[in-house]
């Protein structure tokens, strides 16, 4: 019989001795090379962390492989980061170089530190979710292959964080990333009246619609969708299997940019839509990888030292961004949702 409510394993039992000894007494850190962090304690002790990219979706063989490496070079200690990279924790400096050589020989991706593109925070997609408008793992793989040179170097104007969400629930961090990839639908749900009558809670279904596009149809013991009010968020499908919304020819990807969560210099900000739709061209999503690369290259060419994507765009103005990026601006990019008014330009200050 299982023990209930015993909570997570105790972190203290899994901290390497050097962390226990210098806990809360770290003095400074530096980045000796891409993917390698050096933390120095007040005691003078140095801990090297070697950061390695992962596809997040990993087999137990992968976990066992990194355990073998951690046993050999890190006395059996390692950790994962908030962006799903692995960090090998090296307390013996003599083992750092052999570890890096081993990782290179085995084909691991060392990087993701400082002014780099780090791992893309992403979701389940077609691998395990029932509401996606695109895949997660595949798009991430395609984009990271394309941007690999920015993962294992630190040549960007500032750090660049990307998020991918496979539907408009936006699990993860897509709403607050420098560049966000979001799966979108473009056609209304298809109502299966039989399924609704069999067991959907109609008031909850009606309440799930953010634009009030769904109303009860008591005569049919079902609901009616006002298609003019529907913007295809798919929340009704989340509430009821009767509202299927996937549409292979019309589902795809939107690109949002300029979000951040750190408070450094400027307040945290949301990502903003700059491309309303790109097609789901599996397995490589070339339109998406190309669009993202163009935005990143434009940012590299134009940003000031240390400027995140959003800080750069806010400085030059969004109208200037669209000119420079040669991206079409359309009515789809003008907000018409709940908090839209604050996004309109209530000023005569703008660039031609």
């Amino acid at each position: 019989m299982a023990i209930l409510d015993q909570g997570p394993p105790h972190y203290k039992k899994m901290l390497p001795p050097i962390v226990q000894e210098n806990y809360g007494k770290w003095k400074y850190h530096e980045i000796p090379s891409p993917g390698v962090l050096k933390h120095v304690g007040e005691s003078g002790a140095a801990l090297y962390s070697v950061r390695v990219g992962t596809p997040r979706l990993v087999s137990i063989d992968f976990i066992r492989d990194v355990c073998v490496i951690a046993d050999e070079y890190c006395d059996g200690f390692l950790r994962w980061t908030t962006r799903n990279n692995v960090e090998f924790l090296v307390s013996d400096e003599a083992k750092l170089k052999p570890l890096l050589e081993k990782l290179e020989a085995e084909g691991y991706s060392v990087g993701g530190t400082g002014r780099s593109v780090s791992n893309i925070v992403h979701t389940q997609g077609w691998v395990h979710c029932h509401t996606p408008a695109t895949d997660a793992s595949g798009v991430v793989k395609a984009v990271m292959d394309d941007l690999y040179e920015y993962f294992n170097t630190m040549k960007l104007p500032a750090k660049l964080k990307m998020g991918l969400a496979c539907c408009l629930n936006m699990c993860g961090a897509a709403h607050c990333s420098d560049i966000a990839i979001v799966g979108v639908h473009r056609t209304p749900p298809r109502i299966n009246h039989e399924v609704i009558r069999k067991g959907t809670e109609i008031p909850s279904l009606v309440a799930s619609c953010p634009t009030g596009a769904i109303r009860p149809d008591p005569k049919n013991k079902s609901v009616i969708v006002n298609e003019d009010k529907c913007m295809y968020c798919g929340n009704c499908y989340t509430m009821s299997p009767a509202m299927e919304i996937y549409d292979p020819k019309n589902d795809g990807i939107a690109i949002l940019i300029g979000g951040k969560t750190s408070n450094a210099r400027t307040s945290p900000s949301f990502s903003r839509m700059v491309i309303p739709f790109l097609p789901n061209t599996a397995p490589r999503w070339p339109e998406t990888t190309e669009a993202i690369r163009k935005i990143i290259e434009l940012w590299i060419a134009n940003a000031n030292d240390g400027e995140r994507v959003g800080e750069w765009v806010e400085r030059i103005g969004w109208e200037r961004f669209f000119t420079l990026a040669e991206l079409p601006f359309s009515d789809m990019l003008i907000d018409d949702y709940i908090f839209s008014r604050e996004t309109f330009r209530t000023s005569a200050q703008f660039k031609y």
Partner: protein
Amino acid sequence: MTEKNTPLLDELEKGKWPSFVTEIKRAAVKSEAAGELLQVLERSYKERRGHWKHGGIVGVRGYGGGVIGRYVDEPQTYPNVAEFHTVRLLQPSGWFYNTKTLRTVCDIWEKYGSGLTNMHGSTGDIILLGCKTEHIQPIFDEFSDAGFDLGGSGSCLRTPNCCVGPGRCEHACYDTLEACYNITNEFMDELHRPMWPYKSKIKFSGCANDCTSSIARSDCSVIGTWRDTLRIDQEAVKEYAAKINIKAAVCDKCPTSCLTFNAETQELSVVGEDCTRCMHCINVMPKAIQPGKEKGATILIGGKSTIVQSAFMSWVIVPFMKMEAEDDFAEFKDLMRRIWEWWDEHGKSRERIGETIYRLGMTKFLNGIEVAPVPQMVFRPRANPYVFWNQDDLDRSGTALDGSKL
């Protein structure tokens, strides 16, 4: 008979970034379910649509959540993923592991599951991807014996998580690892037995760099800060001055212009009361500038993603709370209990607390949780005069100054 080759997915084994397809193929050597997952996914790539059926309610005895049920939409074609449920396990604070613990996870999962995982889910959990209904209870029993517990799912407190904190960061303003561990354990009932209008998340970040993105990804964001002034090591400043342009890289980018670099004396000075503790100068010159000594955390509320009322960033409700000792955690826990109680009473079904506060107003919320309003809660005061006054505080006798009836 299922088509066994996977030409579209095979494309994703090429390239330098580690491939999830390779990972699924590795798991497929030992697991028929992983092999079939690959087939289902190949079909999704061809047809550009998902093949998982809507919803699925499964679980373990004693809990109301922790397992995400999932069924393939053609069980006859894909019998091994007919049931393909996800188990969420509570992760250790900061995702610190030893190899013994990780091997235990692998061994138990190999016995019952697909051999596939997510390390980790966005909320923080260890994700065990794909098992049959009949194995859920045995999986939980074995993981429980090995010292693990399930994470959260449904309308409950979800699995809290934290940044690496004092484990390996000189910026940490409180012990995020201990806070996360201690507070997760305090609210086990709220985590395992959904009892609220909707989900509720807590994330712990040691400083305003917010490495857990708590401000955007949790209903309650606990962000480390300090109340006194920056500590500056002038000798270390001089060393930086030889390498970087301190005025351009640090002072000119300070959001409150509270830093001055004297090129002659090579000294950096700060107007402490003007600093908003954004971390920029510390980030650029970590050897020379440290957070102050009087440390604690800012508590913010309401962060969430787009559904239903747009994405919200959390906003300040407690500018400074000490988070050093057990007693300080008690103050935080007490605040959380008041917050959840108010939300439980007023929140509509599937309404995140940020949306409940937006609908009913900060005044009602602050009164409900007995927190006094302070200017740190807003960027700027309201621009309209539509104020709700408490009518009990006013003279409602219905008479004018001369006593005549209004």
